[in-house]
């Protein structure tokens, strides 16, 4: 972990106002600050250059306002996704994101890391669901952006800019989110023993047949994949899509079987393990059409150099996750080569967790994007003294 809670003095503000006061005090003392939530993404990024104070959102876990009829909820940043879903369930509603570790991941953390799961292909990420936010800027200023209605173009969209900013611009204090109805039915088909090119053809056929899966998750097994395709919604639509997908799979010469609840949780576990366990973890993003190329030139060579290497992919989104333990020194040149391949065709390879000996030899983020000067300018404006997670983000932001 790049941030350990014992390294700095720990603050646990119990209200948004207290958080603002705390941060104003820390600003006066010129202390550096790392804001933490459920501590599920503390491997991500470079270790901050200095950590004087840790501000935890764990005591900021209230639902501030819930309007079921408007399908809108405002929560404090420290509430976990699981706690929130439990509050929404009696009204048959949910927040349509499914990142790993829902029992620990906080809404603030999910926003700060733009964390998502396989349902991204249908619902987008939390960036598509955030409608408002209260932040505390590094100088202690409380500021609100957006509102509590889904449609709103008053002023610049500061909340969406905060999504994925990894605690380097401000502390996220409250978040207002758009909700979705809980589906009446959910069914998942497994397609066994697929090659990467079959997966690509499957994705194209799903589009051609105008199907709308809620998730497409490929779980690597050796050089092949088992692909879980899920549908959710009203029963009639789900059942019709299952029949259509069986026909699509038959056309591709792939066996299908419907997964019962127990089998589904086995795949969910394999997925979560790959996303969250393993000393070395890598995320690859590229256009979905490149999946066969990425599989052959990036995923295969990297897995060959990992002990207990695993891979899961969201082939309709265009991301793949690799995890394992590095034992072979050739992993370093392999990572450089993999990144070169991914970036040269348009994409990114981010090392989301790594032991120090790897971090010392390869940048975890990759080549800073062409508009990096604008990112630096934003950092200068929001955090001119570089006190919020200094150096943790891309290019040392």
């Amino acid at each position, binding site marked *: 972990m790049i941030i350990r809670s014992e390294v700095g003095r720990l603050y646990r503000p119990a209200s948004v106002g207290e958080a603002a006061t705390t941060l104003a005090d820390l600003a006066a003392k010129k202390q550096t600050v790392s804001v933490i939530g459920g501590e599920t993404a503390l491997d991500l990024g470079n270790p901050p250059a200095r950590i004087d104070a840790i501000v935890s959102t764990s005591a900021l876990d209230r639902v501030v306002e819930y309007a079921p009829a408007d399908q809108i909820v405002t929560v404090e940043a420290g509430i976990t996704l699981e706690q929130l879903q439990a509050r929404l369930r009696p009204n048959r509603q949910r927040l349509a994101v499914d990142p790993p570790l829902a029992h620990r991941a906080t809404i603030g953390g999910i926003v700060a890391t733009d964390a998502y799961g396989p349902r991204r292909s249908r619902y987008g990420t939390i960036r598509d669901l955030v409608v408002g936010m209260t932040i505390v800027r590094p100088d202690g200023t409380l500021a609100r952006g957006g509102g509590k209605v889904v449609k709103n173009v008053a002023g610049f969209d500061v909340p969406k800019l905060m999504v994925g900013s990894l605690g380097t611009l401000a502390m996220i204090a*409250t978040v207002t989110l758009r909700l979705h109805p809980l589906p009446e039915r959910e069914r998942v088909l497994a397609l066994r023993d697929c090659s990467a090119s079959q997966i690509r053809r499957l994705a194209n056929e799903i589009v051609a047949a105008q199907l709308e899966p809620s998730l497409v998750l490929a779980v690597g097994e050796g050089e092949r994949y088992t692909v879980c395709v899920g549908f959710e919604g009203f029963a009639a639509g789900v059942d019709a899509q299952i029949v259509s997908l069986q026909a699509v799979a038959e056309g591709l010469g792939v066996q299908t079987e419907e997964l019962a609840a127990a089998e589904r949780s086995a795949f969910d576990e394999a997925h979560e393990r790959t996303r969250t366990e393993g000393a070395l973890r890598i995320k690859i993003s590229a256009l979905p059409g490149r999946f066969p190329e990425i599989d052959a030139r990036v995923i295969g060579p990297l897995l060959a150099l990992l002990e207990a290497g695993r891979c899961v992919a969201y082939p309709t989104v265009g991301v793949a996750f690799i995890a394992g333990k590095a034992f072979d020194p050739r992993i370093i040149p392999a990572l450089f080569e993999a990144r070169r391949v991914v970036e040269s065709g348009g994409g990114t390879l981010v090392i989301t967790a790594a032991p120090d000996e790897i971090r010392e030899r390869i940048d975890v983020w990759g080549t800073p994007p062409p508009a*990096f000067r604008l990112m630096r300018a934003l950092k200068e404006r929001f955090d001119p003294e570089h006190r919020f997670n200094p150096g943790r983000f891309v290019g040392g932001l």
Partner: protein
Amino acid sequence: MRVRPALVVLPATTDEVSRCVKLAREFGMPIVPRGSGTGLSGGALPIEGCVVIGLSRMRKILDVDFENQRMRLQPGVINLDVSRRLAPYGYYYAPDPSSQSVCSIGGNVAENSGGAHCLKYGFTANHVVGLTIVLADGEVVEIGGAWPDPLGYNLTSAVVGSEGMLGIVTEVVVRFLRRPQATRTVFATFPSTDQAGEAVSRIIAAGIVPAAIEMMDKLAIEAIVAATGVDWPLDVGAALLIDVDGIAAEVDRCAEAAIEIVRSCGALDVRDPRDENERALMWKGRKGAFAAMGRISPNYYVQDGVIPRSEIAVVLREIAELSRESGFRIANVFHAGDGNLHPLVLYDERIPGEAKEAERVAAEILRICIRHGGSITGEHGVGADKAAYMGEMFNDGDLDTMNLVRCAFDPGRIFNPTKVFPTPRLCGDRPGTYVPHAVETAGLAARG
């Protein structure tokens, strides 16, 4: 509202835009970017001594990638031409503002345009993945990207909806969608807007996510019937136009459920057109609603405000009260599914003082929206028209934070400098003394 710009330039390439920006900067002239000029908040209005950079000559579709459902466009491409280009292949571009036959993609990016169908599919911000922009010093940068999760801060989110104040967009990468298996439209009339509002709430509560739910009140229906010849009944209080789309079996299930709900809410006349032409005619009626006002009034003022969906009936009653008090007729035609109101204040500019008075009444409607926890604009933008009301929705800390974004992009404030912000804000000055935030004064938060 009329200002003659010092200069109008119509560049044809990104490089020409960059050279224009450098020249304008050299001469210290502010720049106002402009697309088709269809905006309803005056974002593209020239300001004193400015250079207007019109992007209407940059109207090429540069690349269509069907496999990944992405396309690269120049900013002057007309919104509807994007879907027209895709239609033969069974795809479409989701954001569909009512002005889509004339408005440009670049303008849509500046305003984060919506449309009737954003209830289910989201706004321009949800469909733009990358941009090429010319910055204040003339440098050309690409932000975002076609692939998921570009590295670093999400600059695309900052630029979409920034009303031409951060840079000039010269290329846009959008995500497009496969056409759904089926679409069904349900049209229903009601004795009152209360009942129509109740139907909207109950459809949403039933777990249905319609592609669109539009509401029209009595006055709006009269105007639409007079202008477009749709055969809608006139002796009603309100009408709903509902689209459900998606998987065929699910669409049928949802359309039947919606019909049952509108009937249980007291609907008078329920229609379920299966004929594509009849469906299209109904939507033509709705999309032509603003223009139709000309049939019942010499002039009208279009307002754009948002309220929580559950407050529709209450707010419409308040607007009716305002109409009675002020003596101005107010027609309502709006996106009920997301609470985005478009009250139209009808007036006659030939009567001295009436235009000004109509504007005052329209402003009062915004205050009603703010009081009900809504927004002063859902899709038309702040522009020149609503800058004065930003301070009623946001406090100084909020506006100061938005200004930080602007200063990061354009510290010299050469792009559209007089828009959006209620009072001039400089870059470089630090915020002063502490002022309690609205969430604190409302008791939602307190300083420990």
